[in-house]
């Protein structure tokens, strides 16, 4: 496509993402966003001013060469664009869907100062989908084999991203996963309607074609330890990317009742075990049809949970959040999607207890209203209970989405691995090296809960340091 002069480019308004109608999609698990068609993607690419010093690249946690990608899209070389993305990002079809671009690449786009930023996420997604749908994958070139063996613990975004870079650098990479599917949070956490599982599968196939090996059903810390991997199985270097998997509960009365779930459990049943299709799959989930379902929390996981509950047939699906809507950590887009679909928001409200029936199933939530006080350590205003504001509401399912802690399985079986007092692994900020030589760690198990792309950034950072560590060693 011919390039317009900058003045003309700035007259083009930002493309909007075609999406499934809110009424329809609130009752199905098909993807909400439908992706830009070819012309719209090129149209959007035309808006890019092709800055000499592209701020978007610096704002991308994996440093994707966005300006070059956009140029290739304008040229109509979509496979070339895919290959360019894959130099820095092993999961473009994933990040094109789930990245909070507004805080990263698009947040840094110079256009954003005066008008809407270039829809980089939409373009990225278009390129990745084009590549997949046409069957022409633009895999990056691999360097000659180094003969060094690398173990990656965990197949979530941090692990996959590190695995990709290590494979490109010619190392022999094996990814170990505790669950029976590859993808970590991408398969157990993020719902089908936001990230179809076939897309993750496809990305994993691409990685297999890069020579990366995957072993499912291996719980490192239980099935095998880090020390055994390094001594008995000959791994030269290890990257721990086990995520922040331990669900937090509210520690209020009644949390053991039937119908009270952690978001992790609820989402795992729905996504990984496909409980949304009970005719076909055996793993059960509490029947939400015609029920009152509330999700406690205001993050992306809370939005994923409440929108899943709606799709499982909930009569009323609520978000219960103890702060105000402005304080919600969820992406604005997700909040809007949830509202459009009919999710009801109860902000400045906090559960005090859950009450059940004689069978031990949840029936009523006891709640209280909150008001915002002084800012706390996170900089957000601290919610404090309003005296005498208690009230009850009928509730059949409560999903607790108030964050996660560090899973201790790896740390507790690796004595020379230093951790924080909250159980997260201590890693050097620059290299992500841990206290144990040859062992690196990144993603949520180091930083606490973050985003897919932050974890991928950590995977890349570690890969760089691991590659240096391995090449500094004597050649095999």
């Amino acid at each position, binding site marked *: 496509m011919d390039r317009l002069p900058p003045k003309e480019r700035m007259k083009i308004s930002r493309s909007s993402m075609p999406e499934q109608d809110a009424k329809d999609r609130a009752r199905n698990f098909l993807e909400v966003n439908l992706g830009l068609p070819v012309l719209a993607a090129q149209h959007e690419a035309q808006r890019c001013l092709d800055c000499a010093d592209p701020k978007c690249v610096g704002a991308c946690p994996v440093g994707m060469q966005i300006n070059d990608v956009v140029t290739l899209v304008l040229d109509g070389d979509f496979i070339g664009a895919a290959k360019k993305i894959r130099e820095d990002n092993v999961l473009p079809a994933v990040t094109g869907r789930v990245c909070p671009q507004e805080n990263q690449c698009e947040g840094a786009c110079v256009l954003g100062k005066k008008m809407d930023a270039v829809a980089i996420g939409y373009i990225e997604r278009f390129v990745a989908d084009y590549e997949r749908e046409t069957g022409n994958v633009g895999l990056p070139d691999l360097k000659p084999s180094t003969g060094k063996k690398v173990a990656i613990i965990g197949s979530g975004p941090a692990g996959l991203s590190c695995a990709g870079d290590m494979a490109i650098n010619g190392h022999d990479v094996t990814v170990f996963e*505790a*669950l*029976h599917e590859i993808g970590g949070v991408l398969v*157990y956490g993020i719902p089908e309607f936001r990230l179809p599982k076939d897309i993750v599968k496809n990305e994993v196939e691409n990685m297999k074609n890069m020579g990366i090996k995957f072993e*499912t*059903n*291996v*719980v490192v810390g*239980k*099935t*095998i330890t880090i020390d055994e991997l390094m001594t008995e199985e000959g791994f030269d270097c290890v990257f721990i990317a086990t995520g922040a*998997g*331990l*669900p937090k*509960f509210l*520690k209020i009365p009644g*949390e*053991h009742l*039937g119908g009270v*779930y*952690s978001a*992790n*459990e609820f989402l*795992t*049943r729905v996504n990984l*075990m*496909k409980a949304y299709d*009970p005719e*076909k*799959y*055996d*793993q*059960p*989930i*509490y*029947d939400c049809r015609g029920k009152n379902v509330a999700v406690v929390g205001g993050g992306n996981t809370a939005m994923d949970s409440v929108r899943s509950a709606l799709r499982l047939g909930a009569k009323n699906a609520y978000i219960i959040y103890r702060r105000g809507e402005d304080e919600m950590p969820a992406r604005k887009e997700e909040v809007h999607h949830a509202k459009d679909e009919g999710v009801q928001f109860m902000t400045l409200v906090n559960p005090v207890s859950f009450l059940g029936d004689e*069978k*031990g*199933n949840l029936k009523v939530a006891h709640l209280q209203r909150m008001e915002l006080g002084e800012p706390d350590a996170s900089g957000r205003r601290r919610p404090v209970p309003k005296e005498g504001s208690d009230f009850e509401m009928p509730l059949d399912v409560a999903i607790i989405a108030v964050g996660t802690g560090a*899973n*201790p*399985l790896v740390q507790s079986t690796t004595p020379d691995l230093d951790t924080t007092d909250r159980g997260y692994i201590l890693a050097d900020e620059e290299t992500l090296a841990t206290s144990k030589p040859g062992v690196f760690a990144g993603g949520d198990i180091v930083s606490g809960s973050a985003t897919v792309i932050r974890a991928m950034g950590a995977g890349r950072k570690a890969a760089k340091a691991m590659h240096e560590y391995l090449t500094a060693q004597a050649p095999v």
Partner: protein
Amino acid sequence: MYLIKEARFLAPDIKLFRIEAPRIARKRKAGQFVIVRVHDEGERIPLTIADSNTDDGTVTIIVQNAGKTTRLLNMMEEGDSVLDIVGPLGDPSHIENFGTCVVIGGGVGTAIAYPTAVEMKTQGNHVIGIVGSRNKELFILEDEMRATTDAFYPMTDDGSYGEKGFVTNKLAEICEKQKVDFVLAIGPIPMMRAVANVTRDLGIKTVVSLNPIMVDGTGMCGGCRVQIGDETKFACVDGPEFDAHLVDFDTLIARNSLYKEKEQKDLAEFQANPLVVLEQVRHQCRLDQVEEAIKARN
């Protein structure tokens, strides 16, 4: 996929499997469990490991027909494969020389109690075994339990074998006659609760192995949370063995019946045509094997 190297019925509806899983076989200790997923549309179910063999890399599980998944599994034969097996999960049994130990197995729970009885004996305990079952037909692992215990008492509900009565009758009798330092009870929840009630007032340290509903088995979902005293614990990573006197059995029973409706529906559908389901699973399994072989060749 994980090959079934041996499969044989120990009693009607109770089947022993030796499944090839060398990594698990090497690490497994008494009291730990695996999670098995039989086929692609199946659920993940926790099963305690009864034994392992490092020479041929197998773990032994003993499975009793309960719902759809266990019945389907129990139709599988030597040469079939299960899709997934992961472990060893949970903490191993705490083994030490307590003095006199009573190891109680109820029904298929005997398979779980047995390896711990062996370890207890090895540590120098005087081990008394009590095994209970509904009737003679369902009585399992008698020879094994006899061989590892200093005294052994078979009990059946209907008196068709051993003494007629519950394991708790025998336990109370033993505790009256002699000093007991430690009790391990593994079996149906009502049995474990009854045992806890016998030993609570006597102040005998008692441990039970809990079997709550579970998904991942690594502490990630919290579905297996149990009330232990005033604490919430995850059976998968904090257990599965807990102090019997602190366990809230009522909550465990309630939580374990959460999905009864769906389970009964699935079971009824399965039982209408079990062989068709088995054939589908086997067929998919063979397709996967062929695919793996092709990939390996390329």
